[in-house]
């Protein structure tokens, strides 16, 4: 049911972990619907220099988390804000329709982390 790219990111997720003194942290989802994603950012000169994630969720949730960290690394904050859930799904060559509703929140978590970064640094 999953594409090869999803399975690749699921089996070898990139950037798993935490950043101890993160510049921004974002979390979306809740355990009720089965999906929690947390994203940690390190930002230098408006550029995302490091990013980590932790996810509780299905294969798609883990793969989208991993993919979004790949997509965002080295980007400016403005560029990062333009990444949508849809773009993440496309970068994974698509997700099964049933999985679009709750697994595909990685970009939301990223945007939350950026919001948190702005809060802390304004």
């Amino acid at each position, binding site marked *: 049911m999953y594409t090869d790219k999803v*399975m690749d990111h*699921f*089996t070898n*997720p990139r950037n*798993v972990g935490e950043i101890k003194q993160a510049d921004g942290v974002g*979390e979306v989802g809740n*355990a*009720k*619907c*089965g*999906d*929690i*994603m*947390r994203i940690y950012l390190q930002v230098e000169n408006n550029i995302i220099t490091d990013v980590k994630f*932790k*996810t*509780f*969720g*299905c*294969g798609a*949730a*883990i793969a989208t988390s991993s993919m979004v960290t790949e997509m965002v690394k080295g980007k400016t904050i403005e560029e990062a804000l333009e990444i949508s859930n849809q773009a993440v799904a496309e970068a994974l060559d698509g997700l099964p329709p*049933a*999985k679009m*509703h*709750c*697994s595909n929140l990685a970009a939301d978590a990223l945007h939350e982390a950026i919001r948190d970064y702005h809060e802390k640094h304004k």
Partner: protein
Amino acid sequence: MKRIYFDHSATTPVHPEVVATMMEYLTDKFGNPSSVHSFGRETRKAVDEARAKVADLIGAEPNEIFFTSGGTESDNLALKGIAYANRKKGNHIITSAIEHHAILHTCEYLANQGFQITYLPVDQYGMVSVDDVRNAITDQTILISIMFANNEVGTIQPIREIGKLAREKKIFFHTDATQAVGHYPINVKEDNIDLLTMAGHKFNAPKGVGALYARRGVRLESLQQGGAHERNMRAGTENVPGIVAIGKAAEIAKRDMNEQIAHLQGLRDKLISQVLATIPHTQLNGHPTQRMPGSVNFSFHFIEGESLLLNLDLKGIAASSGSACTSGSLDPSHVLLAMGLTHEVAHGSLRITMGLGNTEEEVDYLLEVLPEIVARLRSMSPLYGA
């Protein structure tokens, strides 16, 4: 890679003897049992023989067995068939919160038609209480439907006692025995059962065939109109190969039952004790002893079931989970929630159901790979150690 199948509650492989027996009815003996000629007479005979074998497995009479297309159809026929035929007597049906969707959604359908449904709760082990059944009965109650064994956690219900109560109160008693038939001793007479659902593919017959037992004298309204098949209870040309197969599977199940139960219970108890001993933050779901011989269900806290399944699948192991993420629905298993599990813990459930062909080596292999997978997923979880 060798694949290990630990999902016998979802469906089972067809027993090789069953395949061999049904082959003749997929090739030479293809007649329609309603036909007058020799092609028809030979399949009519085969259907009759299969009916006798299925009846024998559960202590019924052949003319109390009606063949259907599976468990869902049998459940629909039992519930709607009794409800429609007894509308004048009353409109109240008692069932439990942990039934299969084939029962629950049929009850919802009947509720829309004006029937009143009581969904009994279960305890932390997934067990229905006989007292709760007694207290739910009203003078409008026409049917009690409680499953024999639960498909997710394997808990075996107090069927005989519920049946006794139902008989005293002159209320029809149906049990969805889809998970129990062929794997656990059932005698419809001793167990006081009026109607019983079975599905071939859950006991090593193929998909596409099931049966409903209805005690002689129990009147049902048929749901499918057409020819006079199955004594007017279920129209449509008989699925002869499927029926021959479920007959053979019933014969084999009866023959091998004691041996199978002993074997599977051994595997089950080893798996339970080892997992609980080696993987922390783990709980067993379902009753510790009153459970199906081959059925195990754990919750591994802080992780989600589908990602666990996918990791097991990559290691060649097929299992299932009550996580919402495996089903495309938004809520995890209604069974686990009814037992009082939180959403989070329900999401972390893993069901291992063993059956035909499973070996101790396979269990050992699972015991070998499971701890690392759980540990790895926990290390990725925002809930763990947080």
